[in-house]
């Protein structure tokens, strides 16, 4: 999945990435907007910056995110 700035997303599952921390479990089910995708190399493995409604802005692995229509 290539995430673009401004796209609406949902944190739909726990990530298997080692950057996922326990407190991030609270993000599951939250919707948000991609505010800073991987700005250099379009790497599917890069962490992307996401602003989640009511939860603040965080850098998350891409495997926990899916695009909303």
């Amino acid at each position, binding site marked *: 999945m290539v995430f673009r700035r401004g796209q609406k997303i949902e944190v739909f599952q726990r990530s298997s990435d080692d950057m996922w921390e326990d407190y991030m479990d609270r993000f599951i089910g939250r*919707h948000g907007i991609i505010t800073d995708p991987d700005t250099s190399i379009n790497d599917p493995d*890069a962490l992307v910056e996401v602003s989640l409604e009511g939860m603040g802005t965080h850098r998350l692995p891409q495997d926990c995110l899916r695009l909303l229509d």
Partner: protein
Amino acid sequence: MKKTPPPHCPVDDALSRLQSAAEGNALQHPRSRRLVGQLATLVRDVAWGRAEMDHLSALDRLAAELAGFNADPHGAELGAALQAALDQHREVFESHVQTENCAAEVCDRLAPAPCQMACPAGIDVPTYVALIGEGRDAEAIEVIRRDNPFPWVCGLVCTRPCEFMCVRGRIDTPVSIKFLKAFAAERALSKGEYVNPPAAASKNRKVCVVGAGPGGMTAAYYLALKGYTVRVLEALPMAGGMMMVGIPRYRLPREVIDREVAMIEDLGVTFHFNTRFGRDVTLAQLQAEGFEAFFLAIGAHDSFRLGIEGEGDYPQVLQSIEFLKRVALGDRHMPGKRVVVIGGGNVAIDAARTCLRLGCSDVTLAYRRTRDEMPADIEEIEQAEEEDVRFNFLTVPVAVEGHDGRVTGLRCLQAELVSKPGSDRMFPVPIDGSEFVIPADAIISAIGQRVAQGSLTEIKSLGWTRRDTIHVNTATMATDVPGIFAAGDAVTGPATVVEAIGGGKRAAQAIDRFLNDIPQPNMPPVPVRRQRVAWTEVPAATKMALKRPHMPLLNMDRRRTTFQQVELGYTENMVREEARRCLRCDICRRCGRCVQVCRDKMGVDALQLGYLDFDHPGPTDFRLTQERCIACGACAENCPNDAMLIEERKGERVLHLCGTILSRQPLLFCDGCGASMGTARYRDYIRSRTKAVAPTIGRRMLCDACARKQSSMDRNIE
């Protein structure tokens, strides 16, 4: 999927219990009813952000009195429950009082707006935008600096996550938050009103910050304000880190960085330049000097290699970060007449635009995907195109060509984007036989940066992620080594200035806790609301008509020849007008109760506020309310946060939402006694629903009391 539990706040719970007890019949004794009333008043103050710490001791006292009043068992039970809540959730009650913030976002008045929540530094955006709108620039800067010591820098280069979450963007375009901040900082500095807050008394405890970039200096600033003695080590000859050597001067003038760094220096922070941690000074030496905690903010200054033939054979093949650093430090020699920059991110664009300013006649940016996939900011791409940077898309470099030790070109293959099974990502795949050469005198590689681990290898137990960044707990920025914290690009990989600032602030808070043996939080802090500034009144038509201004830019000749700032900044009028577009989401929580009651209960449907829904925003038109509103006040009555207000002033009933005047209708007055009777539409609305049971009294305009009197007089006459 795991279901998210509903948010819960002990303060709100306590208030709900007290309010329902006060309104119900369970409390029998007047004394317990009085105590519950007093307790509800105090807890409401806490929930509304208008309590002092004295409120908590008063709550303790009153709860104990209620719990001990056995003459009313229900009251005693409620008192005991309140005592338990105050005891068990003391920190939450204190946090509501001290920070005017409800971390659970349940207490309506204390929940941060989406823009504030989106800011990695947690700046109270609506407050400072409102202050700027009022012309109170210095106060706005004071609010910003409570969360971010670099308002001017961020006003010029922030990636502005706040604007992506800006609710105004659901109506037309987001408020131009970033540029308002830059204006306020510049104005406050120019007037000499940009000042440091007073620092706490010296604690005589030393903290060492490694790296004078945005993260390091932010941590230094907040630690200095707390009274710590802070020393910053910096390998470069100046402060600023990537802000100074990674961002070109035409985007961020050096004076801007210098002025804000000087403010930090004024707090007593000392800088040791040209000092590389691990080489010029070691951890053991610093510990022997008495430093008790360390903050690593070394950035990501290493570049990824292209890995193509000829890359290491010619001195004209440059790494973008090294190139930009050289120029930032004063080198004005062009790398070559014809330059090819490889990459599609912001750094690639910066390198290309810098080459133009150095006099390169032909600058080509080679990117292996298409314009749509470019990770660089769209504004940066557009400005580069305007300045005549040439873009070669779907171009995959395969070798550097040259002879006699000089580069002559970049051999490339044309690519096409194809999808691979199991992935919805498009990958560039070279087309056979499509080889071509881009003539070049220099090649600049800008395909990404990574952390230079060299200087940190002496810290043996420091953990690293598989991305070669420092492993931290992101709630506290603590590394695997006690007493050593880290943030910024060294932790996130190449990221943004404002993220580094947020990380630095979080680390400063965690270092303070570490040095005072206070337990660390288990999740990152929620942004803190700083004030509830009064709104500015704006007519609905103006609110809809105001448009985000266009940024005036430097003329093209200067852009191509000098490093002068390209974005010239808004004029004062633009700034004040733009601030008025803010919807004040710190006050209106977009719960939608006003829309619901107007449409479903009153059957009027006068509020077209499509922006309230995050996922499925609909059309919004504030002007529509004037056409349909009956000025009944049901919306205002049901607003939990006093965002919607209805007032009678100067013979009119005025309805406004956070200052946006939605409806203004003349009031009717009783012909008999002169009392206000609401508006004509309201009267018609009531009459249409009561005409069957209450015939009108001729053509006279009478209030209920006068109508009753008239009716009885009429009957007597009959």
